[in-house]
């Protein structure tokens, strides 16, 4: 069984985001980028399934510009066997990304597709669900536990009320939550080996996908700043202040 894993290049989660003064976006040049943390979890899950003999081949895929090749190399170091780079130089939106990812899934004849539940840059949390809709396939989002057996997936999902369990017939789409696993630490030999693994480059046109214009970005702004409050020295002082404001 082939598994596809998508990996997205995003600004590292430790970076303090700076909004450009002209409102045209956030500063990305010269800023540290990494693999979206949820996608590392997606990779790790696929690799564990391969180690258990449930998955035979792992294909990493990304949609983006030249620099996303680094992201694919990271995925290959994790244990992907090969990678597909859908090369686009212009900005694309989740539906276009989803159309490209769906096309790759179909072309590869994969049975499982792991994506992150959200990318930490745009936080849209929609790509996996869109892929599932476009392919009319099952989806299990926000997964914290995955069992694959006998052509079925049993997935525990983190939902507002607690933990939900769904079962679906393969093929299907799974989006990963933080507690699904803890991604392994990459070792130097794996990083070296990854350099020799194949990356196939395709265009949207090769996949028969036309980018959807979708939403227009009007401007990017800073959120309202919270002003620094006061430091109190004792619990009494805190209680007095909260009572004075009618908060307790």
């Amino acid at each position, binding site marked *: 069984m082939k598994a596809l894993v998508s990996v997205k290049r995003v600004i590292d*989660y430790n970076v*303090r*985001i700076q*909004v450009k003064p002209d409102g045209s976006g*956030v500063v990305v040049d010269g800023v540290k980028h990494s693999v979206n943390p949820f996608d590392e979890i997606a990779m790790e899950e696929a690799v564990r399934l391969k180690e258990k003999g449930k998955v035979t081949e792992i294909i990493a895929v990304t949609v983006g510009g030249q620099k996303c090749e680094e992201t694919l190399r990271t995925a290959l170091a994790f244990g992907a066997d090969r990678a597909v780079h859908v090369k686009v130089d212009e900005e694309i*939106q*989740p*539906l276009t990304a*989803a159309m490209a990812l769906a096309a790759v899934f179909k072309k590869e004849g994969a049975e499982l597709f792991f994506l992150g539940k959200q990318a930490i840059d745009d*936080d*849209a949390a*929609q*790509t996996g*669900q*869109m*892929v*599932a*809709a476009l392919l*009319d396939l*099952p*989806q*299990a*989002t*926000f997964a914290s536990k995955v069992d694959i057996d006998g052509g079925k997936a049993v997935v525990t*999902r*983190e*939902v*507002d*009320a*607690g*933990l*939900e*369990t*769904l*079962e*679906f*017939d393969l093929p299907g789409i799974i989006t990963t939550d*933080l507690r699904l696993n803890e991604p392994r630490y990459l070792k130097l030999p794996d990083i070296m080996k990854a350099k020799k693994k194949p990356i196939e480059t395709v265009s949207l046109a090769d996949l028969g996908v036309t980018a*959807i*214009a*979708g*939403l*227009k*970005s*009007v401007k*990017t702004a800073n*959120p309202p700043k*919270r002003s*620094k*409050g*006061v*430091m*109190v020295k004792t*619990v*009494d002082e*805190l*209680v007095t202040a*909260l009572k004075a404001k009618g*908060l*307790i």
Partner: protein
Amino acid sequence: MSKILVIGQHADGKLNSGIAKVVNAAKAIGGDIHVAVFANDGAAVAAQAAALDGVAKVLVVDRAGNDDYVASAIAPQIVALTQSGGYSHVLAAGTTSGKDFLPRVAAKLGVQQVSDIMAVHSATSFDRPIYAGNAILTVEAPAAPAIVATIRLASFQATGAAAAAAPIEKISVDAVIPGHTRFVSLAAQKSERPELQSATRVVSGGRALGSSENFSIIYSLADKLKAGVGASRAAVDSGYVPNDMQVGQTGKIIAPELYFAIGISGAIQHLAGIKDARTIVAINKDPEAPIFEVADYGLVGDLFALVPELEAKA
């Protein structure tokens, strides 16, 4: 004029408390507001939706299995209703369920979803948070064929009670529902405490609590204050509390009047969940902890001494 379809998400026979906020967002867009209830038997939920101010009509789609809200089963019904009803907007609460089924609806309609609307400028222009709320993006969405959006509940007040209940109409939709996905079970945490997302006060504990036993001092303070209880990711990952208590970018986004961050450092991913809290109180032994940069009241010291004292004096 806009014709707005609000998805009336529900559980255990109760309309999700966020729907009153989604209706308020719909009022800001302006137009005819219909709430659609997809349920096994939606009568009781529909009556609750009909009592919300601003709702012109409630549509009920009864079908065995709808209560489970499996995305691949609900989405085609919403798509069919959107198309047959000629709706200009489809809105859902930005809960885990809204985030699950709505992108499927958007993809089927061939549109981009607007995720987590936090402000409405016009029927087609909205603000949404990106980078864990560290930047706000204003987007303009094409009006046709429809605008599909989730609403960030922490950004909107609830609509009030209607003077007269809106009419309720039972309808059926023409949708093919795949059998490939089955709901198995829901392990819900039952709690007598106020629900995290609607509580006016919330007390959260972090990694510093050290164990689930120690977390009892957080529950105990919360009970004294009639507050909901939350936690940082570190506290959830360490197994002190269940996942549904996580507050932050990847947990719950909340907007209480009063928030206590106890033994929580204040990572940006945690702060993303409390940006709209009215007053933040932080208790931390490290005077340099980033949480103090956003706290309205900061108290430096050992939480194991300070929290019981606070409980006694509050």
